[in-house]
């Protein structure tokens, strides 16, 4: 369930790695869509709001970026689905989120990576993926679940948690990228010294990354699927692998990065193995949390192989593979 720490390796030599840009294809039939991951001429440049070189406190930058992000809801491009809907006018994209932000959980937990816990975890409702096995599917798929999110009030709660012994404040979902303006506003109300964790599915856009640059100390990013076929079948998400890899490479350069992989029954060879091999080759030394506590939640039963938990031999095989590749497993 919880793996031991392996020998650390030197940081990645990122000049040697890279991800090729290419057209993003939609789910329906491979129609090329606009390139999402590179800022085009019609995308606003956020360079002047970058953390580097401005000297402005994080809270100030976060407040300004929250304002910018809120305006961007009129043409939502926060994630790689690139829906470009006007959420301010009531239009919904694939995540179904509008301009209202809700949360379904806010509490201190100790189930995340040991170096991050106890963590005050705030889970925002709504997600841009449709993982049939999502353990919080009812709330994650429904942006109207839970209660209204007041960034300032939640920041007060987070401060109480910090004073009570929490080591980090973690924003998650669902997928917090969907609610980027509220996430940034939340950051703006938090103490400058607070250690902030961005728990993400790593399917965000380049625009989202720019807005997030310097805001969170740690990116805790899922790399769920090792191939696009499994991603499409189990989470209805296109072009998954390329986009996640690009985000992980970016995150490793701009913050601390911990990559999570939830081991799924029957997916050691098709998903974990390619993920592990890519991490070993492209992000050597990156912290990896291999989680084997899968349980068949939500709509997992739609997929025969997901109707059970991970077996002991599967778990052992996955750890063996990680060790043979020299991955830096963290508990």
């Amino acid at each position, binding site marked *: *369930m*919880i793996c031991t720490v392996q020998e650390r390796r030197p940081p990645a030599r990122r000049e040697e790695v890279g991800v090729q840009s290419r057209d993003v294809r939609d789910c329906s039939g491979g129609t090329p869509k606009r390139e999402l991951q590179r800022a085009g001429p019609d995308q606003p440049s956020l360079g002047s709001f970058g953390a580097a070189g401005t000297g402005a406190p994080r809270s100030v930058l976060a407040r300004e970026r929250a304002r910018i992000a809120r305006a961007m809801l009129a043409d939502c491009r926060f994630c790689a689905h690139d829906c470009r809907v006007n959420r301010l006018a009531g239009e919904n994209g694939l995540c179904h989120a509008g301009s209202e932000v809700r*949360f*379904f*959980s*806010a*509490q*201190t*937990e*100790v*189930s995340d990576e*040991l170096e991050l*816990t*106890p963590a005050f*975890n705030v*889970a925002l409702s709504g997600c841009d993926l449709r993982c049939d096995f999502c*353990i*919080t599917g*009812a*709330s994650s798929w429904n942006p109207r*679940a*839970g*209660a209204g999110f007041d960034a300032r009030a939640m920041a007060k709660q987070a401060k*109480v*948690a910090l*004073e*009570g*012994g*929490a080591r980090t404040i973690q924003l998650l979902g669902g997928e917090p990228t969907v609610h980027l303006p509220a996430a940034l506003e939340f950051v703006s109300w938090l103490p400058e010294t607070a250690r902030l964790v961005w728990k993400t599915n790593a399917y965000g856009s380049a625009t989202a990354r720019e807005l997030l640059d310097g805001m969170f100390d740690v990116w805790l990013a899922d790399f769920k699927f090792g191939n696009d076929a499994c991603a499409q079948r189990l989470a209805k998400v296109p072009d998954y692998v390329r986009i996640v890899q690009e985000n992980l490479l970016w995150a490793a350069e701009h913050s601390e990065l911990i990559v999570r992989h939830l081991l799924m029954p029957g997916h050691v060879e098709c998903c974990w193995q390619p993920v592990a091999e890519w991490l070993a080759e492209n992000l050597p030394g990156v912290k990896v949390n291999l989680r084997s*506590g899968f*349980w*068949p939640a939500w709509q997992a039963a739609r997929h025969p192989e997901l109707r059970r*938990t991970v077996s002991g031999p599967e778990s052992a095989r996955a750890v063996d593979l990680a060790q043979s590749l020299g991955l830096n497993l963290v*508990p």
Partner: protein
Amino acid sequence: MKKHRSKNDCASPGKDQVSELLILPDGQILVHNLTPAFAGLLHELNPDDEHISSRVTRHMSPHL
């Protein structure tokens, strides 16, 4: 497999803290959203479980 919640029947943003358990036929327990209080309880039930003991926090404020 039996699934239990420590409090409500649905995830709640209210004051109640929620952890979820999945108890497997072989006695193995999987936990989601493990709170400090629930970690403490599980630790009392099985002090030898190193997965849980590493997560027990003794310095947390009791109201968290």
